[in-house]
């Protein structure tokens, strides 16, 4: 389920999402052999393949016409983790397939489109970047601004057996 410009379409579809962490052209290799990544923000894009039942031809046409309007962006509501996300995104191509059956029946099927967000979903400001320096690497070995690391997920498991700086076992 997704929505375009305020209209929600509860129809069979597959939705593929991609997050692009975009950096500017001033990114590059530095003299100390590190890479300077001037990250501008994280831009979401969704590729949607629609399978509209034959008895919903009007809806099919409405979706097609909405997507092919020559505007700089549509307001989409798309699935995002356990919730949804609202993005203004551009659609550059919309494709589908014309089918003619043996009995002479004809119809269009399989609208596919990709919408790419015009604005970042996540972004740092210049102030944040200047204060914190470059974005920390995900590897915990790199010092970040403080001395704290978050360890979670599959790879790292906290053991119940450890000793701390005072050599006290737990």
């Amino acid at each position, binding site marked *: 389920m997704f929505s375009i410009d305020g209209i929600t379409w509860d129809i069979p579809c597959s939705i593929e999402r991609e997050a692009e962490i975009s950096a500017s052209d001033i990114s590059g290799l530095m*003299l100390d052999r590190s890479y300077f990544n001037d990250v501008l923000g994280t831009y979401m894009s969704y590729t949607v393949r629609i399978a509209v039942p034959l008895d919903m031809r009007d809806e099919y046409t409405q979706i097609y016409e909405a997507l092919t309007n020559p505007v700089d962006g549509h307001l989409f509501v798309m699935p995002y983790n356990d919730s949804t996300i609202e993005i203004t995104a551009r659609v550059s191509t919309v494709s589908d397939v014309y089918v003619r059956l043996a009995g002479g029946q004809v119809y269009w099927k399989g609208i596919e489109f990709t919408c790419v967000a015009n604005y970042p979903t996540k972004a740092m400001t210049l102030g944040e970047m200047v204060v914190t320096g470059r974005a920390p690497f995900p590897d915990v070995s790199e010092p970040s601004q403080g001395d704290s690391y978050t360890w979670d997920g599959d790879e790292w498991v906290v053991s119940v057996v450890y000793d701390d700086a005072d050599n006290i076992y737990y």
Partner: protein
Amino acid sequence: MYIKVYTYDGLPELIGTYTEITGLSYAPSADLAGASIPINEFQVDIHTTDTIEIGGYAELYDDLDNLWAQYWIVYAEHIDQQTLRLRAQSDIGILDKVELLAVYVENASVTSVLDDTILWSTIGSVVPMTYSLDSSLTSATITGFFPHQTARERLMWIAFTIGGYVKTHFNQTIEILPIDNTVTAIPIGDTYWKPSITYNSWVTAIRGHAYTFAIGTPSTTDTYVEDWIGNTYIVTETTITIQNQNAPEAAPENVVDIDGLYLLNGNNISSVLSRLTAWYFNRTEVDFDAINNGAYIPGDKVQVHLDDEKIASGFITSATFAFGLQAKAKMHLTGVEDVESGKLKILYKYNGVQIGKKVYSLPVGYTYTITNPYIDKTMNKHRYIFRPLAESITGTMTSGTTTVTQNYAVALDLYKSVLHIISVDSITESQDQTTLITIGVIA
């Protein structure tokens, strides 16, 4: 980056702040040798359907609200329906269109001469202009003859004579500043791969012409000048030459001739020429790119790494900016000198075993403070996170190689997917199962 646009009709009026910038070029420069005053400008493409009249001015700001330039709008046209291209120039562009009459001055204070230049330029252009003169230059006096010339040329003559240069970037006024030898070091990690060095032909000598003026009626063989009210001054000329002792004997003769600058006289010619040797007798120039959010600007003296070992200092004469979230500048250095450097080798050890190493090339005499990093290292199938026993290392750089050792302890040990917490400051588990481990420096 964003732009504020003002109209000016006796008083400034803000007509718009534009944040949707699709293109921006800004490349301020400064001629520290004083041979010219560049007309700095910026060009910006704005996503707008607004129409903007030329004659007002525009201010360029970064996202931290720092002013980068305040220039007069000389061009504003739509290049497509929704994109306005705007070009704005510094006050020098206006001074270049104002012509000033010939005049002889004697022992005139530099401030009075500058006041006159800016006042007549303001009257001539109907545009308000201000200048500031660094306090170290205010006691200078001017003796000599100004020919009929543009206000831009006159300002250049004055600045050149008193040993200043003109800065029209990152400010709202014309600044006349002395050469400042304070050096700012650009970190190697902020310098892009890789600076280039240019060696120009040797300048073998600088020749300067000094003048005296005597009011009178010239003979047919006299050289003379005439001021705007018809007074004639007979000109007497002498020359002084300074040889470049560093130029090899085989270098072809290449003399820089400072000729026709009627403010040079017996009192100031030696100091002017000796000042110029710093620029003309130094044939090394450096071009390099660095992350530059406005910290290094034309006129500044900076120290830059040329490679892993070599360091040089020099004056920025131009900076061509490119913008992302941060800004990068392609900078040109003149007056380049080698900086003696030494090597600092830091060995990171745990129980006597080396777990890491860093080597820095730093200027001799530089006081460094280098933070000890956390080290992630896999040894014998154990993935260790080591924590430093000291937060940082400090010292003063000497020549040669200095080796220091920093000791570490194991903070975390991951072995066969089990994390052993060996030495940490605190552990906090939140309701969402996230575990926060705080690792400080062991005191």
